[in-house]
Every structure is written in C-alpha cells, then in structure tokens.
C-alpha cells in the first residue's frame, strides 16, 4: 500500500506513516484467525479429530466452479480416505483431476486469467485460481492409488502411479533446464531474507517439491505385485526411492526383495550399492526364500503445515508500500515412529519401526520456494498499483479519501496461504515378512495403541494403512494373495536385516484365497469394507464424525479384516 503524500499541515507525515500500519494491524486479526473462515473451521475440525466438521468447510466450494474448487476437492478426497471411504475418495480425486486437467489445457493467454491477474494486483493473490502445484498433483495421484489399492484394484492403482511418475518426470526435466538458486529469490529486506533463509535451509537437500520417496516406494510395491512383468518397473521406482530416502529400512528391504526376484546381476548390483552406501545389505549367506507374506505399513502421521504470513511495510520515497508473503515457520518436529510388534510366534520379540519417506512440510516449503519469484513480483506490482490508486484518489477527492484508500489497500494486502491442510505431516513406511497363519500385530503410536488381526498366506502381500493425528486414528488393511507360488530361487538370499529371520512368524493374515486367474497377486475378497456410497448428485457423501471420546481405547479406529 502506498501512503499518499501528506498534505495535512497539522499532522506530521511520519505520524501518518506510522498510523496506517498500526490501524491495519489493529484491523487485522491475529495470525491464526487471519485465515478465511472455512479454513479456520477445517482446522478446528481436524484438530478435534472431527472429520465431519472439517468436511463441512469444503463441501460447498468443491461442488461448484470457483477459485478454490480444486483445493476443496483435494481436501474432501483426503478426508474421505482418512475416514476409510475409499470409493468416495477416489471419485473426488478423479473429479479433482478433471478440474486440474482443464486448467492445464487452458489457453496461455485468456481473458479470465488476465482478469484474475489484474484483480490479484489490486486485491491479493487469493483472487487467483488455485490450480494445484506439481507437488499437489503427485500427492493426489499417490493417495488415489492407495484408494484403489485398498479396494483391491491393482491395475487402476498402477494407472495413478504412472501418472504420478509423469508429473515427477516433467519436474525432473524442468529442474534440469532451470538453474535453481534460492539466493536469487530472496528479497532485499533483511527480515524477509532471514525468515526465508531459515525456510530455505530446511529444504536445502530437496531436489524439488515434486519428487518424493513414498510415491516411488509405493510404485515399486504395486508393480512388484504384477509378477515377473512388473519387476523392471518396480526396480526403476525403488531405485529412485532409495536415492531419495536411503535411510529408510523399508526402502532397502524392498530394493533387495525386487533384486532377489530379478536375480543374477540385479542382486549383485543391489548388494554392492547398499554395501557401498554403508547400508546393511543383509547376510552374506543364502537365507531361504520367504515362506510367509509381506507386510507393508504406510503410516500417515500428523497434519500438514499451515502457512503463515509475513507482512511488511516498506518506505519507498515518500510512500509506504505494504507487501505480504506466505511462509512456513520451520520444518516442524519430527513425527514419532509407529512401532509394530507381532503378538505371537518367534517374531513376538521383534519390534518394527516406521521411518519417514515423505515430509509434506518440507515439500510445501520447497514448493513455496519455487513459487517465490512470482509471488514477490506480483506483490511488488500490487503494491505499486495500490499506491497509484491511492494517489489518484487523493488527487481527485482529497487527502482523507487518499488516506482511506491507503488503509483499504493495507487491509486487502494479504498473502495467499491456501494449502492442502488434511495431508499428513509425514508418511512413514515399514516392511517385513510374517509367517503364514493368523497373526495379531500390535501397534504403538506416540499416545495410542492398537492391534490388527491378519491372516497371512505364503507369498501374500498385506498393506496396512494407518492414519493418525491427535484426536484421530484409523487402521485399514488389504491383503493380496499370491496367484502363483513364489518362484523358488534358493541360490538367492533374502536380506531383511531389520526383520525377523525368514520363516519366523510375523504379521500377516489372509482370508482363504481367490482362484488364481492371473499372474501376480490377487486381492483377497474383502470383508465388509467401510466404504461410503458414491457421492450423490447434490454432493458427496458425508464423512462420519471422528472419534470424540476422551478414552483412548474408545478412539481406536475401525480395524478391518
């Protein structure tokens, strides 16, 4: 905002210069309350574990074209998944994908976009349409693949992950073309530079905001289940996951599992690579091929960060210009791992811990870093435009009008803090082998415990989807039976150092299987999955309320199968 040249003789200019920001600060609510009403409502719902309340904030926006439609559909999609309504969730994500593809296909220069751009200069960036970042699109596809996975549709899960890989590949190519440099996007103001400097430091090791190890790891898992035909794709994906998260034991386990199945040089290369990187590559001997079933744990913990706002008033010449930028305050505390323990058998003494492979806080900060040049440019142009409007107002209607226009401009200056709030703060994974038979897996989170009964068959693969944040948690499981017996390759060792030895009882349960009709794995006939009916024409189905009791046991989520 520009503050007009002061013509009031009795009022020193400096006083007026101080008055405007003070008035603006007085009018502006505190940082958290500064969010739009629907965001506050969603945040309150999420923090209380009340998904229905959070959902209400997005229902109207998701159902009609508008600036925030895509974001609202993303939110509803992840909320439905949180509630175990996988069918409803995938329909919302598909709808969101259609909206996003419409945006991607629009004309380079359009009247609508130009109008919104001009509006953004005079008001703020919230006028712009939320078109979803590359990070959003990859995560939406990844979450939707989990929906298909939990519904037993492996082919569609692979389609989603291929699309996620397309987005990641585009981003890799773009990154190669551009010379990234955080320093060039830092504004000159020391306060902003310091603030963003901390944020940039927290994401220095990230290549970009789009690639993440979880998507790659999940891709490896889903293609692995396709049998021999999927091994090459699985290996490419898991190697990329290993590059992004070499510290995660589950990634190493999957890497070695795929290499073992490929055999020969692939196994040697994997062993050599893990050894070179100092990772435990497994015993040098030749343990037996797994006789149990694999358990893959995807633990989504916490909630995504909410961007805050940095608002500055900078004197330039005789005017004051106000600028507002979104910012993420620090990387946030690390999420505690989930501990898993098989309740019976030789694996009972062993505890598995999940390890992080995706940090949405870091990805969000990286995405903001990538967008910052545009944000700064628009912010500066907006400040100049508002200053011009104020000057015109003052020249035409006098100093009072100019002053009021300046106040209005200051109040309107606001950072675009729209963000996908219902994402987890982190996704952690664990992987291991369980012996055949009925197994009870004990889970221990930071402030809760739970248990899952699983039926494990040889060669099966069970996915355990755990969503937890303060006030809410839910566990879902899906088992895929081996349609064909795993190939016996006793000459190739299996190395899962952090897991019980092969043959030990572990976790995995499986219902009696389906007829083997195709290579790879087939989904176990599900129990009564808690799937909501598809969205009605008037709107998506309601999400059941989250647990509201105070007794932790009462809050234990539904446990399937």
């Amino acid at each position, binding site marked *: 905002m520009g503050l007009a040249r002061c013509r009031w003789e009795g009022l020193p200019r400096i006083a007026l210069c101080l008055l405007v920001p003070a008035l603006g600060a007085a009018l502006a609510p505190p940082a958290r309350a500064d969010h739009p009403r629907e965001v506050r409502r969603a945040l309150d719902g999420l923090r209380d574990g009340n998904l229905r309340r959070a959902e209400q904030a997005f229902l109207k926006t998701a159902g009609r074209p508008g600036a925030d439609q895509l974001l609202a559909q993303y939110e509803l999609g992840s909320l439905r998944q949180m509630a175990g309504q996988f069918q409803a969730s995938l329909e919302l994500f*598909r709808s969101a994908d259609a909206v996003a*593809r419409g945006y991607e*296909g*629009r*004309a*380079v*220069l*359009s*009247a*609508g976009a130009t109008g919104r751009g001009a509006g953004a200069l005079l008001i703020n960036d919230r006028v712009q349409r939320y078109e979803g970042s590359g990070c959003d699109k990859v995560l939406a596809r990844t979450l939707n693949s989990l929906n298909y996975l939990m519904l037993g549709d492996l*082919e*569609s899960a*692979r*389609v989603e992950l*291929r*699309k996620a*890989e*397309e987005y990641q590949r*585009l981003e890799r*190519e773009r990154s190669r073309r551009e010379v990234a440099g955080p320093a060039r996007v830092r504004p000159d103001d020391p306060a902003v530079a310091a603030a963003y400097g901390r944020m940039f430091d927290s994401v220095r090791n990230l290549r970009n905001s789009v690639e993440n190890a979880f998507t790659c790891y999940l891709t490896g898992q889903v293609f692995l289940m396709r049998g021999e035909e999927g091994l090459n794709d699985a290996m490419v994906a898991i190697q990329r996951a290993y590059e992004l998260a070499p510290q995660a034991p589950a990634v190493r386990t999957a890497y070695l599992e795929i290499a073992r199945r490929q055999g020969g040089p692939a196994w040697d290369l994997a062993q050599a690579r893990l050894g070179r990187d100092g990772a435990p590559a497994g015993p040098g001997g030749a343990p037996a091929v797994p006789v149990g079933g694999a358990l893959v744990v995807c633990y989504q913990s916490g909630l995504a960060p909410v961007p805050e706002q940095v608002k500055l008033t900078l004197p330039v010449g005789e005017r004051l210009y106000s600028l507002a930028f979104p910012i993420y305050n620090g990387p946030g505390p690390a999420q505690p791992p989930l501990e898993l323990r098989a309740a019976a058998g030789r694996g009972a003494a062993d505890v598995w811990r999940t390890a992080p492979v995706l940090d949405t806080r870091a990805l969000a900060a990286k995405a903001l870093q990538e967008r910052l040049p545009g944000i700064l440019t628009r912010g500066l142009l907006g400040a100049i435009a508002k200053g011009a409007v104020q000057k015109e107002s003052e020249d035409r209607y006098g100093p009072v009008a100019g002053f009021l226009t300046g106040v209005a401009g200051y109040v309107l200056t606001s950072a675009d803090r729209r963000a996908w709030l219902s994402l987890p703060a982190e996704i952690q994974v664990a992987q291991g082998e369980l012996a055949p038979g009925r197994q009870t897996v004990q889970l221990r989170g930071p402030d809760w415990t739970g248990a899952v009964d699983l039926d494990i068959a040889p060669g099966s693969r069970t996915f355990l989807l755990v969503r937890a944040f303060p006030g809410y948690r839910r566990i879902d499981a899906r088992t895929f039976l081996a349609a064909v017996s795993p190939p016996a390759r006793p000459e190739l060792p299996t190395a899962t150092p952090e897991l019980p030895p092969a043959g030990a009882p572990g976790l995995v349960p499986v219902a009696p299987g389906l007829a083997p009709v195709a290579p790879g794995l087939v989904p176990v006939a599900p129990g009564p999955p808690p799937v909501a009916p598809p969205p009605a024409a008037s709107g998506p189905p309601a999400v059941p309320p989250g647990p509201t009791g105070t007794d932790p046991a009462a809050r234990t989520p539904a446990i399937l199968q």
Partner: protein
Amino acid sequence: MHKLTLPLLALAALGLGCSGPVTSYGNAQATETVNADFGSTDLQMIADKMVASLMASNRLQPDPADPGNPPLVSVTRLRNETSEHIDTKSITDKIRTALIKSGKVRFSGLEMQGELADQYKLQGIMADSATQKAAGKQIGSKYILNGSISSIVKQTGKVKDVYYKITLQATDIESAVIVWADDVEIRKDSVRRLFGA
C-alpha cells in the same frame, strides 16, 4: 436512468436465455479431438484395424471337434498399462461385436460365468425339466484373445505428445501357440492455444 432500463432488461434476458446447456446429437463416428486423451475415435480406430487384421489373416480355424461351426474364442480384458483410466472393456466389446457380426468367429461368455451359474441354479429349481439348462455342457473355447494398451507421454511447454500402442493376440489354448498378433499405433499431439476465454 430510464434510458438504461430497456438495454439492461435486454441484456438480462439474453443472459438468462444463454445460461442453460445446449444439447444436440452428434455423429458417433465423427473424429473427436477435444484433447490428447484416449477418446472415442481411438477406440473405433483400434477396433476397426484389429478386426480387419484378424479377418484378413484367416488364422482362426474351426475346432476339429466341432468342424461345422466357426471357432469359439474367449476374450479377456486388455491390460491397461497407460497413465489414463481407459475403459478397456469397451475396446474388447467393440472388437467382439464386430467379429461376431462377421460370422466367422463365435465367442464364449466367459465373463458371464457368475450369472450363468445363477441361472443353472435357478432353473434347477424353477424351470420345466424338459427345458432345464444345467451346468457341464458349455463348449470349450479353442482360442483366447488378449492384449494390452500402453502409452508414452511427453510434454514440453505448450506441446503434449501421446503415443498409444495396442497389442492384441490370439492364442490356441490347447497348444499355447500364438496364432495371430497385431498392434495398432496412435500418435496424438495437442498444443495449448495462445488465446482463449
């Protein structure tokens, strides 16, 4: 002020008149180029080329056990190996329908086994014994028809290039010999317009 009333009313009426959707019938065979995604024209092109290739090959021979009738074929869904959700059943349905119309091939209702089982059960209870149909008399297929559809997508700036390859093959179930195979390739480009609404 009253001078503006009529024009404003006219504009409002025009706006209301244009606010509803406009519906019309189009030519189902017309080329569809809304975007580079898999569409109806691709489906028709694949089915036409595959049927023509299979008919021209004359590789599907009658079963020696049933020489008087065209060979019986089972068809399974195409594997979708693209990054789009494609209704591959529509592709196989269209191919199957065209082949049945040719009269040179018969198809087994493999995918209806569940419904057939229900019918056997129902007829066992409800139908006249003289016309009752029971399980165990289905004709074994001589061939199985299956395949896959894959894609490669490239995108740079405003240009998106999509390449589809659809492979179909017929396998003799008894000998496991692939007696016929063909593929159809489709390449589509789309360029974002420079100006638009």
